[in-house]
Structures are given as structure tokens and as C-alpha cells.
């Protein structure tokens, strides 16, 4: 089987500048020699460190980790909206992504107009998009609202439309963030079925989720990131098990901390 995604030693460093010049005025002010005050201090922050994995066509990878673990940064690098500081990434094939709720939707435009805009970002021509409209409308169950501006959509409707567009453009690699969590259970199930069915057709799936059971049972591989570093990578059952074990331990330390605080309060 061919490799769809190769992620090699990817690291991402952010410069947390204490005072970045946000305006030309500040920039000019910086240029004044011997001005008062300190030089701009920068603080490097590594959002990702040495993340490597590989994904073949028709395989799926679940990514888990706590908030702030670096999952979103990894996704941004995978969707090429951000560049890695170190390491390299190769995506072989058309990438489609469902990242943020309604990302890429323009609130003033109707569902139909947004389909055109979004699908053209994914590289489809007008005629191709027109051919896919019925499929998208049917899957998103928005028959009555497709010509309504997206700003009047509920978050569920938004997610449905986003998902329908992202999957119908025949991607070769599909990236899905937690957005599915907003849909109701029926729709979540429908989405999961769709994901698995396009995976059967040879599409690679990258799924970020807090739904550990989904990852453990439906994904081929799992990647657990914490503090920007890979904690575990491999069989999803084992990765999720390790994650749960760490989580249980983490909770006990939090409880212990809490008890300490309460005790000191009482004193």
C-alpha cells in the first residue's frame, strides 16, 4: 500500500514575543535609537516536538491528547496552513479538512453559495461542484435551508454542511477535528459511517477526538500527544488504555492538590 502522509520529526516553535510591534507606529518607535525601555524579549515555546508518523492510503489515525497538547497545531501543519519549524511533511493527494466549525463559511451567504466557495478552495471546478450539490444537500439534510444564509444555521446544521462538503469533494486524505461533537447522536453515527465508507475506498483518515471509544474501536492507529510530544503511537486499543491510565493518575493528583488547598483554607 502507498503512503499517503509522511510526518517526519515535525517540530513547531512559536515565538511568544513579549511586545511584538503590532503597528507601524510601534515599529517606528523601535527604530528610535537609545529609546527608553528594554529590548523586545522573546520566549520560544515548543508546541510540537519531534512528531513522526506515517499513514497509508485507506488507513485511519486517531489523534488524542488533552487541551493544549498540540493537536490543533499538528492539524494546522497537516492542512498546510502553518509551516513546521523543523522536520518535514509530505501529503500525497488531495486533502480535505473539517477543522473548525464553520471555518470557511461566510455568514451572509447561503448554504449553496458557501458550498461553491468551499469546494473551490478544495480545487473543484464549477461544473464538478454543481454535480455534487444534490449529494451534499441530501447528506446534510438541509433541503429546506440550503438557500438560507449560513448565519441563521444552528451549530448542528453548520457542522452537517461542513462535513458534507468536506467528504463529498472526493479527497484522498480527510482530516476531521472534533467538530463532529456538536451534531446529535444520529448524525455523529452517520458521519462515522461515511468516514468508514470513504476509507474503504482508499481515503486516509486523520481524526482528532475526545471520544476515546471511537478511536479505540474504529481507528487503525492512534497517536497520543501531550505537551507537544508523542507519548504513544501504535495500536489504538493500547494507546487509549495508556491514555486512560495516565488520566486516572492525573485526576488523583488533582484531587490531592485540591485537598491540600482546602486544608490550608480551613487553617
Amino acid at each position: 500500500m502507498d503512503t499517503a502522509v509522511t510526518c517526519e520529526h515535525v517540530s513547531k516553535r512559536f515565538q511568544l514575543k513579549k511586545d511584538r510591534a503590532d503597528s507601524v507606529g510601534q515599529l517606528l518607535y523601535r527604530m528610535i535609537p537609545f529609546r527608553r525601555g528594554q529590548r523586545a524579549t522573546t520566549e520560544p515555546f515548543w508546541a510540537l516536538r519531534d512528531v513522526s508518523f506515517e499513514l497509508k492510503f485507506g488507513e485511519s489515525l486517531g489523534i488524542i491528547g488533552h487541551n493544549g497538547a498540540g493537536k490543533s497545531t499538528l492539524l494546522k501543519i497537516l492542512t498546510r496552513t502553518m509551516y513546521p519549524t523543523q522536520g518535514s511533511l509530505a501529503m500525497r493527494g488531495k486533502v480535505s479538512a473539517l477543522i473548525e466549525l464553520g471555518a470557511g463559511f461566510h455568514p451572509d451567504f447561503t448554504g449553496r453559495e458557501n458550498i461553491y466557495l468551499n469546494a473551490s478552495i478544495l480545487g473543484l471546478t464549477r461544473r464538478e461542484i454543481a454535480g455534487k450539490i444534490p449529494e451534499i444537500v441530501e447528506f446534510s439534510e438541509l433541503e429546506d435551508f440550503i438557500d438560507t444564509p449560513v448565519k441563521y444555521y444552528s451549530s448542528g446544521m453548520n457542522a452537517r454542511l461542513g462535513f458534507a462538503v468536506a467528504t463529498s469533494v472526493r479527497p484522498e486524505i480527510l482530516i476531521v477535528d472534533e467538530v463532529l461533537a456538536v451534531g446529535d447522536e444520529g448524525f455523529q453515527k452517520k458521519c462515522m459511517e461515511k468516514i468508514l465508507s470513504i476509507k474503504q475506498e482508499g481515503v486516509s483518515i486523520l481524526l482528532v477526538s475526545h471520544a476515546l471509544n471511537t478511536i479505540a474501536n474504529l481507528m487503525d492507529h492512534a497517536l497520543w500527544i501531550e505537551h507537544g510530544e508523542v507519548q504513544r503511537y501504535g495500536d489504538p486499543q493500547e494507546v487509549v488504555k495508556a491514555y486512560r491510565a495516565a488520566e486516572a493518575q492525573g485526576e488523583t493528583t488533582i484531587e490531592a492538590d485540591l485537598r491540600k488547598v482546602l486544608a490550608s483554607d480551613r487553617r
Partner: protein
Amino acid sequence: MAVAQVGERLTVLERVLPHDLLRWVELIRNLAVRDVETRYKHSLLGLYWTLINPLVTALIFSFVFQDIFHATSKPIPYVVFLLSGLTFWNFFNNGVYSATSSVTGNAQLLAKLYFPRVVLPTAAVLARLIDFAFGLVILLVFFALYRVPLHWAGFILIAPILLLQVVFTMGIAFITSALNVLYRDMSQLIGLLLMVWMYMSPVMFHPSSAPAELRLVFYINPIGAMISAEKDLLFTGQVTHPLYLWFAVLWTFLVYAAGLRLFKRIEPLFAEVM
């Protein structure tokens, strides 16, 4: 199968030519149409605003300059003279102005997926070309109303100069839109610069009525040279100062190449700064 490599170095050709633009023509088209539509979707007068703005400007300026300062543009009625200058100037002005915030204003699109970001300022400039087309229609109506003879051959010859103007506008737009991501007051600054630039260009006056020293400015003011040539073609059917135009061609290529280079250089920072 397209292999998208991140972190690899670009070849010299990729740096200079936006060849990926061709692949994204569809997206540019959609963005440009969306740009025009958003502007007028929830407004009462819709597209008519593109006509009302230059019309009112032309009327008020012609009152000030003709009736108060006694400017003339004989044998052409001053209103027609002014409106033709403004129509061409506004395309440049509005193109640069709306492109400046094209990257920052589309943060929600940037978050979605990779597409060459140059598409955004390009679409913003081309969207103004649609407005320009409406303005041109109004201009022709004024030619008819004031019975100013229009040189049709000259009118056709405007096309290549207009193309030059589009490319130049894009070059400036690449620079301002990229810098606006880093420094948000670029959009304030550009408004001011454009105003100075307009008075330095033969928009409201004929180059021959300007002092000789000022005429030298047109050598280094490509947009002024273009507008001057465009107006000459409309009124007389020939370009008075072709030399200025050759300078403008040179400037256009320089600005476009430099703008694209700067844009590509700042592009990797977009996601981090915004």
C-alpha cells in the same frame, strides 16, 4: 498525483511566477464574485453605490475646481474630464484599498485549508474590475450627454494599458495586504498614501497645466502615466507621452515581482500572527 511538500525550498521560477494562480482561477473567480456580492448584498442601492460614489465626487470636484478655481480642460467639459480620470483612478485606489484587508479579513478562510494566499489580494483587485466596468458604462453615458466625441480606436487601445494597470495594482496590493497582516495600521496608512498619490497624478488636472518640475514626477509615477495615457486615448485617440508609459511598464514588472516576493516571504507567518 500531486505531492504537496512542506518545508522544501522553492525554485527560482516558483518564486517569481504565480503559476499556481492558474490552478486557482476558479477560486479567484468565486472570491471576487463573493467580494462584490458581500459589498452590496444587504444594501438598499446595491451595485448603484459603485456609480453614485464617483458621480458625487465628480460633481463636487467639478464645482470646486471649475466654478471656484476656474480650472479648464477645454475643449472637453470639466465634469467629463474629471469623471474619466476618477473612473481609472478609482479602480487603482479601490483595488489597493480593498486588497489591503483581503488577507486579514478572510481569517476564517485561512484557518480552513491551504491555498496559495496570493489568491486573496488577486481576487480583491479583480473584484474592483467589476465595479470599474460599471463605472465605464456611466462614463460613456456622460460622453453621450455632453456630446463629447469618443475615439473608438483609442477606446480599444485602452485595454492593454488597463491590463498594465491591473498588474501594477496587484503588485501594490501584494505588498500592502501582506504588511497589513503584520502591522494593522497599514490600512490607515494606505488611505493617506493613496490620497497623496491621487493629487500627484493627473486625475483632476491635465499634465500640461502642471508646473514643469511636477511633470517629472510622472516619470516615477506609473499610475499617473497610465491614467494620463488612458485619458489621452479617450479624448484624442493617441498617447501624448509614450515615453512615460514605457517607464510605467518597467515599474509594473518591478513592483509586481517585488510584491509577489515580499508576499511569499511573509506568507508562512500569516497563520501564526493572525
